[in-house]
């Protein structure tokens, strides 16, 4: 019997899964959703004793803000002490607390969950929906992650999959998946810009494809730029409009905010289809005389475009940086691929066409592209005759180095090196009869500790007694095809294996 592999786009705001059946990738309809797109939201009910997932959970957010977990992807594999986490702690309506090993945990009604626990719940629902769709169990999956996800974030994603009962046969980069969905990677030499404007994040990735060799030339992004910002801009417009036309400075509660934001989201979607839309929000505005007025407004495309253009322009700032980093001009890119729900907006499509001087690829529903590509890769990985199928070579997501004496970092693994790869380094003991040696692992291209991000620690334990500097322990760093780091160590003198622990911060 043929085996199936689920391709899963586990997104910040939505999750989509696809599967290849009879050589055709198909998106999987999710139970309780109006199609294949499920909000990545989990809402806990009954004092945390039960939970709901997806649209149903998203609708609960206004009434149940402390117990509804959203945007968990932003927390996955993060360190609690990081500036980003601090920002999310302030911003998110649920409680974020410190877990073991500087990891992030979410506290709901006195119970603690790791971000991967939430991802596991989401993946579990996806798995069940897929099984219902094809009528039999599915174990294997390919899960996508942003190109700039680090080691901890990839490991956590794998763990979440495993906990949901999935054998995650590959973690791949989202832009790579998008390129695969459009059939790139067959013999042609091309540079592709993957323009991914999602609900909460924007990413631009420039890929070079040649003979199934896929290289990420550069990737840039903004972690706070997405459809949500467009909704927020419309919301701000409403507030300003009410002040101008009704003479009322709105004091708004969370309920009003979410009501108007939902209205903004609806308008945004409608305006991709119609030219102009009239909106009435009943009993919204408290007039000075005590009456409550309905809010009426008409928004047409040109006004809408005016409102959103500063937001859209920010995405092109990223594009310019990405091109610069890849040493390319916009016209040297052969194809632009649109990904993410926000790219449905005609204005954005037009702007992308202008920027790259070509019409972007649009054949596949932009929210489904990544999941489709993941499914295609998954399918090719389990094919009976793998020798004939294309092979995709991915690259290291970021540079990794080890801390040395003083303020220095020795970079061992360079960003964009083809995977799998291995590098070795030799370490020694700094004191007589030292039992353990701790080595910091740093992420990024900086050669100074004080400027780099400490990602974790390598601990050599049970060292044999020796004088200072006498031990020569060779440590092999391997980054596998998923972009995940593994280590092993060897005592060069004795040829024995040396105990080594890899402790990545943020992994609880």
């Amino acid at each position, binding site marked *: 019997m043929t085996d199936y592999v689920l391709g899963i786009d586990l997104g910040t705001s939505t999750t989509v899964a696809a599967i290849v059946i009879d050589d055709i990738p198909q998106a999987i309809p999710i139970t309780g959703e109006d199609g294949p797109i499920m909000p990545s939201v989990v809402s806990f009910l009954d004092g945390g004793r039960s939970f709901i997932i997806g649209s149903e959970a998203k609708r609960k957010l206004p009434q149940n803000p402390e117990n509804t977990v959203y945007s968990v992807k932003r927390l996955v594999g993060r360190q609690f002490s990081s500036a980003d986490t601090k920002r999310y702690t302030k911003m998110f309506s649920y409680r974020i607390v410190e877990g073991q090993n500087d990891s992030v945990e979410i506290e709901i009604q006195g119970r603690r969950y790791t971000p991967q626990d939430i991802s596991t719940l989401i993946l579990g629902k996806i798995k069940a929906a897929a099984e219902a769709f094809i009528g039999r169990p599915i174990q294997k999956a390919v899960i996508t992650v942003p190109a700039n996800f680090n080691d901890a974030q990839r490991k956590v994603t794998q763990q979440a999959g495993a906990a949901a009962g999935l054998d995650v046969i590959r973690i791949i980069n989202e832009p790579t998946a998008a390129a695969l969905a459009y059939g790139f990677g067959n013999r042609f030499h091309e540079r592709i810009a993957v323009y991914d404007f999602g609900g909460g994040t924007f990413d631009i990735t420039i890929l070079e494809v040649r003979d199934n060799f896929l290289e990420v030339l550069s990737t840039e992004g903004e972690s706070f730029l997405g459809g949500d910002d467009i909704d927020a801009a419309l919301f701000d417009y409403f507030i300003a409009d009410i002040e101008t036309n009704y003479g009322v400075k709105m004091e708004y509660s969370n309920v009003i905010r979410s009501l108007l934001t939902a209205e903004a989201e609806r308008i945004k979607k409608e305006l991709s289809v119609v030219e102009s839309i009239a909106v009435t929000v009943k009993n919204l505005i408290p007039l000075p005389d005590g009456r409550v007025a309905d809010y009426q407004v008409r928004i047409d495309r040109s006004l809408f475009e005016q409102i959103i253009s500063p937001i859209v322009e920010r995405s092109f700032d990223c594009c310019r940086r990405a091109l610069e980093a890849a040493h390319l001009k916009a016209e040297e890119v052969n194809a632009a691929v649109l990904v993410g729900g926000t790219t449905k907006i005609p204005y954005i499509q037009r702007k992308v066409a202008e920027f790259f001087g070509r019409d972007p690829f649009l*054949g596949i529903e932009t929210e489904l592209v990544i999941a489709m590509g993941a499914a295609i890769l998954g399918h090719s990985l389990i094919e009976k005759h793998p020798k004939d199928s294309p092979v995709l070579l991915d690259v290291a997501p970021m540079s990794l180095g080890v801390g040395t004496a003083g303020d220095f970092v020795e970079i061992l693994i360079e960003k964009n090196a083809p995977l799998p790869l*291995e*590098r070795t380094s030799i370490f020694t003991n700094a004191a007589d009869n030292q039992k353990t040696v701790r080595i910091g692992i740093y992420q990024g291209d900086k050669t100074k500790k004080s400027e780099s991000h400490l990602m974790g620690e390598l601990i050599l334990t049970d060292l044999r007694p020796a004088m200072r500097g006498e031990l020569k322990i060779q440590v092999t760093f391997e980054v596998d095809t998923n972009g995940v780091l593994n280590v092993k160590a060897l005592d060069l003198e004795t040829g024995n294996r040396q105990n080594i622990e890899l402790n990545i911060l943020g992994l609880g």
Partner: protein
Amino acid sequence: MMHRIGIYLKDERYLASLKDFLERKITGAEVVAIKSIKEFNEQADASLTVIIAETQLPEGIWLRLMPVLKRARHIILIAFPGGPEITDEIAKKYGAERLFRVPFPSNDLLAAIQEMIAKDAQEDAVQEASPETVTDMEELFKKLDDLDYYTLFDVSQNADAETIKKHYIAMARKYHPDKFRAALSEVRKMAYEITKRVNEAYSVLSHPNRRKMYDLMRRDNPDVKRFDFRLKMKYEENPHDTIHNKQARRFTILAQKAIEEGQLKQALTQLKMADAMEPGNNYILSLIEEVKTKIEQG
């Protein structure tokens, strides 16, 4: 080897004559006539060596057609008078290697196709040159540590970047662990180890500075097979960073300026000063070598 050539033209008479012409001229070629978009979708696949298509297509069809076109190995476009303005530049953007404007000599088209076929044969040869069977893989695996990167890639020491990339891609495709997912775990492990080494070799040979260092290392000691990545990745971005002594660094920078200006003797003196201040620095030594060679060459 059998070649399939697809032709998509609306003008049926022209299509028939072109088909006839190519079939007569190219031995062992099967020429497929494609008359509609629907046929196009069914016929155009990876088995097509060359696809010839006209540019006079309704707007919007192009975008739909592009992924289909790209299934073929090579694309040739034919522009008819009165059709849309197509420049070579635009044709290239569609992935076409050649653009012909009607009228054009049929022999030019023929020559273009023959050239493409010959190039494919060469490329295939590169791929077939590496071992395929598991036994061959075992052999390669066994002697992996005895091979320097050039031997591993089967290229000469002075191979250019393009050749190295070509051979690398061929190797990487052949041994990528994904191809051996269904194989025994030992075979998979071998593929994995080989791929890691192939990637390592490429990381060095594709990188001018590292390659220079590697060559230098090997010239001093031919037993060296693998690059020592601890020898300063810093080297890549800013080689000066590997020089710790401030004075040595200053002299090196001065020397480089002198090299640019063609003052080689002056540069050499400055580099020797730098070397004295930080003996054994590989970057300084490599520059000294470089300048000496330049002086010898006059």
